[in-house]
């Protein structure tokens, strides 16, 4: 019996590792060709070294400890590079109705905006938009994709300049 329990726990651990790999692989595709040597203060720097997105639990807009940690880094970076204005995009997974997901995405974007404002970023630099379930980044039919789609992405508006 004892051994059975150990095995099961081992499997669960393996599953968690596998999921982390999936996410990491996805992040790599997004930032194809970029490395952590990106010019400090560039858009690449923000995406690769800070992290441009946070994820949410199903039907939730509360920020997890991990999300707050990412947003702390975003706030620090945005305070340092004050020339940027940003658009915070809120998104939902496809397992909901269209209108509600538009509202839910708005809630998520606003949760991120409120957090960044609390960390000293001027409200005038922040704009929010919700895409609901209209802009998925992962298209498979299970939780591994839906977790990636339940996101708020901080997009630098003038990263090219």
């Amino acid at each position, binding site marked *: 019996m004892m051994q059975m329990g150990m095995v099961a726990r081992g499997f669960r651990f393996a599953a968690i590792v596998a999921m982390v790999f999936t996410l990491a692989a996805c992040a790599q595709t997004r930032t194809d060709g970029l490395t952590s040597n990106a010019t400090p203060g560039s858009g690449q720097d923000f995406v690769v070294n800070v992290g441009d997105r946070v994820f949410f639990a199903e039907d939730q807009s509360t920020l997890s400890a991990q999300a707050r940690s990412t947003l702390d880094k975003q706030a620090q970076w945005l305070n340092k590079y004050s020339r940027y204005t940003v658009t915070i995009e809120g998104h939902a997974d496809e397992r909901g109705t*269209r*209108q509600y997901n*538009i509202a839910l995405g708005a809630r998520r974007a606003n*949760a991120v905006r409120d957090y960044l404002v609390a960390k000293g970023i001027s409200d005038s630099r922040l704009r929010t938009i919700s895409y609901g379930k209209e802009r998925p*980044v992962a*298209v*498979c039919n299970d939780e591994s994709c839906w977790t990636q789609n339940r996101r708020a992405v901080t997009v630098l508006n003038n990263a090219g300049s």
Partner: protein
Amino acid sequence: MYFPVAARAGSWSRALAGSVRFAFAFLAAFAVFAAAGPAQALVEIDVTQGNVEPLPIAIPDFGGPGGDAEVARDVSAIISSDLRRSGLFRPLDPASFIEQNVNVGTPPQFGSWRPIGAQALVVGSVTRQGDGRLRAEFRLWDVFAGEQMLGQQFFTTPDNWRRLAHIIADAIYERLTGEKGYFDTRIVFVAESGPKDNRVKRLAIMDQDGANVRYLTRGDSLVLTPRFSPTRQEITYMAYSDEAPRVYLLNIETGQREVVGNFPGMTFAPRFSPDGQKVVMSLQQGGNSNIYVMDLRSRRTTRLTNSPAIDTSPSYAPDGSRIVFESDRGGSQQLYVMNGDGSGAERISFGPGRYSTPVWSPRGDLIAFTKMHQGRFMIGVMRPDGKGERILTEGYHNEGPAWSPNGRVLVFFRDTPGASGGPQLWTVDLTGYNEQRVPTEGFASDPAWSPLLD
């Protein structure tokens, strides 16, 4: 003997697209040969039953001597297809017909239609006039009573031949069921193309049977949730074409487009009031979504809900006195009914799961909705007091019901999972037994039904 012919008066000058301008003229009466007197119809469909046994009906090819054979055949085929798809009729196989040369000008030999089980018989013809117009006439016979139930005649330009067929199908449907038909109608929807993570969405409009598709936007901006005006050739929808996503009005005859209202945030989930004079919608501000209504004439906006929650998908009762909407104010998405001025909101959905996208039947007796429970998405109906919930279809993902103008059929979209999956349009009637796919070229979502055309 004189037998009056039902008249469908008026011109259709308000029909779609500006270019389509036509008028159906009428003969006031047919010279008639059938038995006189009020039809003691033996043949009728009781649509109040839960599961309707479809009525066997014979519809011989409208092509005949002197007629325009090709158009005539197509017209009778569309009438047959409309009636079959309703689930209330069973058009009989023409191979079983004994009497081969029926003629709209002479009574049929009823004795040859009874043995094959036909309870109703439609005899018609389509001919081309000297001026190029089509002339169509038909008679609906009660086979067992041996009496004419209906006789009508139409003139129109040849390009309207499909509408001609739908109008005749509506007349037959109405005579035999006692309810208005819904075949001479259109569906506005969102046509989708491209991969799932980069979808192009365009507003499109088509006949209710999937014919005559016309695109209303080019696909350069994201468009969602189009809804028909009950009174004008106009739709309201949400588009991402500006700084903030907003609700728009689009005149489908002129192509003229305007923003609805001057709101300080994103507006979405629009729907017309039953008189067509107002648009009710959600406004998002600071993460909260509340319901507002704008009077299209005075441009005055009124706030109807004020909660720290998601209040959306408002839909008016047909008399305009009440509004059903969804809200997560109680912790999860549920349906609420409030008065037209926003007062007296009461929750009406109490089953297990989440409820969304409520829409009030044009008959007033039911509210249709999307229900989500244990990873399944269902389309169902309940009475406005929340009682009598019935699920009409369920599966991986069914969403966004919209009513046919007679309140008997719902059109919705059904999505399929995975990277290659996508939505398609389906109808289901109130029995839940008659599901039909509405054919579209590619993926399609967010359907809304037009009123009966005029």
